[in-house]
């Protein structure tokens, strides 16, 4: 547990108060640069931005309502090689959990990267958000309504729009981070919660950036519990529905037959960190006679080949680390429920090893270790 304090919000301008706080990190020399979502000039979306100059913080928006990329990927690019100065990244809980997983696979290095986590009400599909704005919703106002909902632990979204399915079933609305910006349970037009982790605890105080006081509203715990419970309910319903639909090989294929093998799910996935997927290497390049042999065996084969095995192997590779951000869903042009598939399968496999992805950088991923006495799957005496 880190140390607690609050950010005072004046005139109900929550976004600005958080922005000022983040600015103070840059100004106070705590960090050299800040990765933070910035509202697009068009106003209908957000983009992660690496800001060096504190004066260029305009539009920086810690509570961004879309997730155009999984920023764990960005964190990976930023930190894996030759990052010699300290920076911070403002991330959503699922992005932080992906960062934790990537850290285990040495794709993120936390030596010079601070994590700033923000309570997450959920995100909208990029296209949905854009549409809402174009339809006349006012960005700042929408956020205000959502923040109000967060105070009570209720998911608020405009008529006709919902948060992304993965967000609706995400049971991790709050992050573990070096700096945690707390929104749930707070009257955010007056104050926002702040928790400073061990790494920065002293430094922040010494630099006069914070003074620690108070535990925040007593209702927060209950509010978060309420959010988690609602999402867990959603999640379990989704699992149940999915498992009801995908009962056997045929129903699975029927459900996923519109996969066009674009690999978008893989590209969007923060855990799929390979520089080049094995399915794009020479191993899966075949010559004409090979395709003919296959076609000969089955009478005919779908082209391009290797669709099912792609999904299965991708799953074998990363399902133990799937943190459920759902960007694969968002990326799928065929609107396949890839995320629900991964979460539903991942749930069982992760439990098999008592492994919670994204929980702790010191937890060893199941694919990297073993126990001598476990998993009696070897068939016994004949």
């Amino acid at each position: 547990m880190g140390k607690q304090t609050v950010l005072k919000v004046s005139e109900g301008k929550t976004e600005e108060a958080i922005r000022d706080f983040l600015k103070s990190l840059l100004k106070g020399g705590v960090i050299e640069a800040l990765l933070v979502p910035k509202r697009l000039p068009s106003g209908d979306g957000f983009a992660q931005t690496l800001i060096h100059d504190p004066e260029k913080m305009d539009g920086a928006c810690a509570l961004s309502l879309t997730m155009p990329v999984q920023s764990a990927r960005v964190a990976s690019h930023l930190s894996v090689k030759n990052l010699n100065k300290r920076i911070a990244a403002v991330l959503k809980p699922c992005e932080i959990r992906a960062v934790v997983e990537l850290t285990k696979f040495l794709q993120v290095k936390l030596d010079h990267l601070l994590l700033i986590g923000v309570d997450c009400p959920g995100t909208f599909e990029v296209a949905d958000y854009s549409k809402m704005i174009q339809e006349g919703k006012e960005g700042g106002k929408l956020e205000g309504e959502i923040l109000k909902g967060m105070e009570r632990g209720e998911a608020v979204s405009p008529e006709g729009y919902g948060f992304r399915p993965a967000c609706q079933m995400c049971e991790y609305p709050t992050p573990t981070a070096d700096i945690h910006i707390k929104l749930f349970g707070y009257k955010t037009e007056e104050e926002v919660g702040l928790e400073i982790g061990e790494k920065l605890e002293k430094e922040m105080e010494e630099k006069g950036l914070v003074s620690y006081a108070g535990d925040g509203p007593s209702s927060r715990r209950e509010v978060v519990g309420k959010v988690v419970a609602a999402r867990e309910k959603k999640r379990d319903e989704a699992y149940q529905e999915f498992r009801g639909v995908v009962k056997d090989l045929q129903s699975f294929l029927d459900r996923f037959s519109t996969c066009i093998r674009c690999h978008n799910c893989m590209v969007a996935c923060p855990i799929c960190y390979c520089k080049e997927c094995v399915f794009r290497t020479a191993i899966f390049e075949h010559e004409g006679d090979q395709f003919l042999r296959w076609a000969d065996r089955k009478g005919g084969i779908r082209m391009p080949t290797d669709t099912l095995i792609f999904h299965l192997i991708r799953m074998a590779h990363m399902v133990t680390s799937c943190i459920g951000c759902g960007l694969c869903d968002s990326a799928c042009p065929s609107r396949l429920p890839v995320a629900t598939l991964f979460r539903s399968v991942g749930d069982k496999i992760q439990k098999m090893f008592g492994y919670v992805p994204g929980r702790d950088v010191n937890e060893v991923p199941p694919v990297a270790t073993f126990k001598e006495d476990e998993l009696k799957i070897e068939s016994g005496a004949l």
Partner: protein
Amino acid sequence: MELKKMKGDKSSALVVGAGIAGMQSALLLAEMGRRVFLLEQGPAIGGYFPLLDKTFPTNSCGVCFMSPTPPAFCPIYECHLHDNIELLPYSEVKKVQGTEGDFRVSIVRKPRCVDPQRCTLCEACIKVCPVEVEREFGGGLEKRKAIYLPFPQAIPHSLVIDPKTCTRCGECVKVCAPGAIDLDMKEEEEEIGAGAILLGFGFEPFWAQKKGEYGFGRHENVLTSIQFERLISTSSPTQGFPVRISDGKKMERIAFIQCVGSRDPSCGQDHCSTICCMYATKQAMIAKERAPQLNVTFFYMDIRPMGKDYERYYERAKAEYGIEYIRSAISSVKELQQTKNLLITYVKEDGTFEEREFDSVILSLGFTPPQGIQDLAKGMGLRLNRQGFCETDEFSPGHTSVKGIFVGGAFRGPRDIPETVVEGSSAAASAASFLHPNSGSLPKREYPAEGALADEIPKIGVFVCHCGGELKETLSIAELVEKTKQLGEVCHVEEMGLACLPEDLNQIKMKIGEHGINRIVMAGCSHREIRKTMEEMARGIGFNPYLIEYANIREQCAFVHRDHPELATEKAMALIRMAVERAKWIQPIRKGSHKVEKQGLVIGGGAAGMTASLRLAEQGYEVYLIEKGKELGGNLRDSFYTLKGSDPQSFLKDLIQKVKNQSSIHPYFETEITGFEKTNGQYKTKIRHPGGEESLDHGALILATGGKEVTPREYLYGEDSRVITQRQLEKMIHLKDEGLKEIRSAVMIQCVGSRDEEHPYCSRICCGHAVKNALKLKEQDPAVQVYILYRDVRTYGFYETYYHEARGKGVIFIRFDPEKKPKVTLENGAIRVSVFDPAMGSEVSLSADRLVLSAGIEPHDNRDLARLFGVDLNPDGFFMEANPKSAPLDSVDRGKFFCGLCHSPNTIEDSISQGNAAAARTGALLSGGEVEEKPYLAYVIKRLCCGCGLCVAVCPYGARVLNEEEVKAEVQEALCQGCGNCVVACRNAASQQRNFEKGLNLNVLNAAID
């Protein structure tokens, strides 16, 4: 009889007896570059261990780890494969002439009557042989013919005719297609020249009939432990399921009777056979795994699991397997007429009689010395001990009484496999020191240069061997040949008769030239059978041996699908297709080699460390000997006499002198280790000593950091000066301390700091220590009362005789249960010990002028060292070996070894053996000055690698490292063993394995499905 020219010379070694000790000695000496003759009197090498399916304390097999160059096959096969070892099976030593360093040994090669070169094991002869007798293997549970294979994995892999039972009817000769049988084969005499002789005669099980009262041979359901071992082996006729001999019904209630032919002067066996408690416990556990409903009861006197991790094993047997142990003496074993069940009457510890009925009884046979070697021993001038085992000096355990003749293993007395492996290694070290350093190392064979085959388009030659016609009985060879011709990139296909014989090999050579063949597919027997021959042929003509593929259409097809000739042929075709597919993609492999520093680093200057240093120095290596204290000697400095009566102090003086005289040993005192780096098998250790800091390059590391006596925390130790440890008593006796006179009554308490929660292991030496000191007290004054309060008396091996002596001299042994530990109180200033005596059924109270605590052994805190050197500790803090059975002193990482008390509690004698053995393992590694790479190395396609480190995490050998700068993984070729685990860990095939590339495997898979 024809006398052949002498083989071998002063630089070679002759190992007599190819059991575990003999094979270990042979493999190590061979790795050191020596020419080794390995002689075995039986028709196949291996000794007793082919009988063992599982071994304690791991309940796994593990024997393959024995080879000094893991990963390896079973040592039997490794001995067969090793270029420097010549096997002399079915032979006997007739006479040893010459002197130390220059022996001439006459041996007799007994007639096998079957030519191993030609025998294809088609077994036609076995079918027609009319003579059926009991099969020796497994104690006669099964039958065999007069012509037979000793056991399935036998090397030489050929049948043999037993002259004692063969009737010379000639039926076998008629049916033998390759003409391998010659009933008139004569014995041949040969002469072997050797600088050193190593004896690994082993042991024989006690002859159970001698203990007639147990009914073996009369009652069908009384089995020996040898038979039971066979019965529960998965390769037994019941696949290891325990059934009764009389009616084949499953066993439900069985009893083990311990000490049959052990600790029993009445049958001439006054020693403890050391391992029966453990092997019987193992048999019971395995039997229970096979048949969980089985009830197992042990009748025993003392239970003696004294090896590393054995105590835990015994506790598991009781707690997890529910095996019942009853301390008792057997009164009688009666067979019940109707059921053929057995009624055992026994006397319990408290003197009461009880009866129990069992459906089978297993006699845990003790060990006797090998029979029939007395004359030979006499001829060599070898001294045997009273029990008939080989006598050795306590402080030079590998040496016999004859200079130049060495010994290891059970011929020195009963011992388990780890000790036997250690002693086989120890004998090899002693022999290597004795043979002149580096003289006569076999030169590496020279072969013609290989052509550049890598970039050529594959031209595959396929040779289909029908194995002397036998495969034709199942497979259509003609069809295979025809269809193979249709396969792409195949330029030549040919049928062969016996591809392993020179005629056919020459034919292959010719065709290679004729057709420009650059890849060979050999379809026929398993690669395990023919690989050596093919590779030798290939090297001889400059053909890269890794461009030969094998299609196993014999063992894995024709032999096993006899009733389905068509499907078998189809399968054989698939196997050939797969091999051809592999052949298309494989690349020549030229194994690189890596320099290893010819220096050893030994940490710890006690008995084990000094011994290891000396042996290494004698083999010609430089040794850095690191000692944290100011002087050499370690625990040996506190030892003044041994149970067997030797003088450790004069041995120590001598040892230190030898170390000082060795110019190639560089001792460092008051030195600590500050750093360790390894690159590709080269080590660099940083040290700090009063003179400054240094960095030492070395190729191997021996950890001999020792251990210490546990400081007791009970029984008033430290509170009353009359409460002392055995070590303190030993010193008093040695110094003739005045206090000795006060002692009219001494009470000793065993297992202080052993077999308890904090130290859940047996310290092995304390029972002997107590008996030793008790005898000394009695020797000084027979009137002194000595009581030894014990849990089990563990005077194993020949120490048993001293236990017997102590009892005879009036030392009183009182057993106690751990739940009822002795109570020590002060009464009017005197020490009183009260304890519940189960034999009396009441509490006894003893007064003690001295209370002597038999404190156990514990290791020093080695956690920092272990972390620094990257080796593991077991839960008790001792260093952990790669395999407790067959690589007891090796770390998983190559080139790191353990010996002495840091490995496990040991006697001085054991520590010396281990020091020798560690030096032998080191010598085998350093001998060539370089390590050859394994063929199927992993490699990294850097373009694809994202440096995720999964390959590093899964590599068991530390052969994978991350280049931090590039954020890419790398392979340390000298350490890679070629398992391919990293290839699978890698998600996008950036990690690959030579000739097992992912794409290659998928292509082969494709060919398998077609």
